[in-house]
């Protein structure tokens, strides 16, 4: 272990690491690897949604959950990302849709207060049941992003470069499905959510 940095350097050379790239010179970072064996509900943190209600992620266990990370001042990519989450949500069969929660978590903990998030939800016409536009302490947001494999970095102009990722959690809070990139087809994932629902003891 004495020459660790150089060993790692060599490893980095030998392996094709899952790097995060800036695509097309814009602000998109690709998703990192994740651990899908364990529940992200281990993250013991308090979250506040756009209604001012506080939650721990664990409160959403027992049902499938759709998670998307975004920020309010992002006017180009994020509305598409939020629309993608809506696309997925609305593709889920009506009878089970009410059991699925959508968590839209902001990177921008400084600007996106619950009030700002409520305006955002209203503007996007998503101030509806089961949708939670959430914020927390920045360390918690960073931890959640690490668990989901969402890369983000704040730029000097106040905007964020970030991964565009929609994640589906199973009933135990484990990562069941990841959809990376914008405008991806959602029908198949909607079917998978249905089977998560049907599979009571999904293990």
């Amino acid at each position, binding site marked *: *272990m004495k020459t660790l*940095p150089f060993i*790692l*350097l060599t490893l*980095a050379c030998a392996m094709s690491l899952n*790097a995060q790239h*800036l695509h097309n010179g814009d602000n998109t970072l690709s998703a990192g690897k994740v651990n899908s064996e364990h529940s992200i509900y281990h993250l013991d943190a308090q979250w506040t949604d756009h209604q001012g209600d506080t939650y721990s992620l664990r409160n959403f266990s027992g049902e499938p959950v759709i998670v998307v990370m975004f920020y309010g001042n992002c006017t180009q990519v994020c509305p598409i990302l939020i629309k993608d989450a809506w696309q997925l949500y609305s593709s889920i069969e009506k009878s089970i849709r009410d059991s699925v929660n959508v968590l839209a978590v902001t990177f921008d903990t400084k600007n996106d207060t619950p009030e700002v998030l409520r305006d955002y939800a209203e503007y996007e016409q998503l101030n509806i049941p089961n949708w939670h536009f959430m914020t927390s302490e*920045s*360390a918690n947001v960073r931890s959640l992003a*690490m668990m989901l494999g969402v890369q983000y970095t704040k730029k000097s102009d106040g905007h964020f470069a970030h991964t565009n990722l929609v994640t589906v959690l199973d009933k135990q809070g484990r990562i069941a499905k990841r959809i990376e990139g914008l405008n991806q087809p959602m029908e198949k994932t909607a079917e998978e959510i249905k089977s998560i629902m049907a599979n009571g003891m999904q293990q």
Partner: protein
Amino acid sequence: MKFLTNIAPAQTLTMVAFVMTFGLPSTAEAQPERVLVPSGSFHSVMPEVKGEPIAVNSFYMDITAVTNEQFAEFVAENKQWQRSEVPAIFANKDYLAHWPGSSPDIESLGGNRPVTHVSWFAANAYCQWVGGRLPTLNEWEYSAQLMDFESQQEARQFTARLMSWYSNVDTKNSAAVGSTGIETIHGVKDQFGLIMEWVQDFKPPVADNLSLDCGTVGRMQRLGNTYSYAASIRYITRMSYIPTSTTATMGFRCAYDATQKMETENPAQ
């Protein structure tokens, strides 16, 4: 004169190192002293913003890395971060592997040794617990290059030492924090020469035409000195980590928003 770093000398030399200690909140006895790192800019070795310096706002940073003793206090108060309790999603098996049980054996480890075998999640939780956060990658690198040398020769000797250290980190016998004699102009100690350190966003965005292969170091912007080669090694090493990594070389220190500290310092509040 500055020989190694690439920040405008006039800018850094007029900066005044500004050391403060704080009345500590009750949960934060483990908090070491910290210093203000005033705002400025630096050239990263990362190639995506060629020629454009990265601006960094003022922030506070711990003078030294977090020690085993300090981390033990955190673990004692937060049982979920004990080795036997920590969920696998937060740390690899080697988490705190150098502790015989739920606390370190200071007699055999030596006092004031930097804690290692801690995952990013554990480091992040610790900093949150003391009311701070992990420094961002840019903050850490910006601070690290705020060094000043008496002469070109001293600068050269330092880079030689730095390279030798990066190629030969002794994980079995780490020295006490603050003991390396390496200090920035603002009083931040041991950013080199002791351990590698976690930062908040340890995988920086890489331009699309780069991949993390052998050529990456070569393609990283050369700042015309050995120092930037050492920095490239740090970037590459960090990219090879995952947030649950718990190696014998990796520890951390915490940072704090400058605005946040101004509030706590005001006795009127």
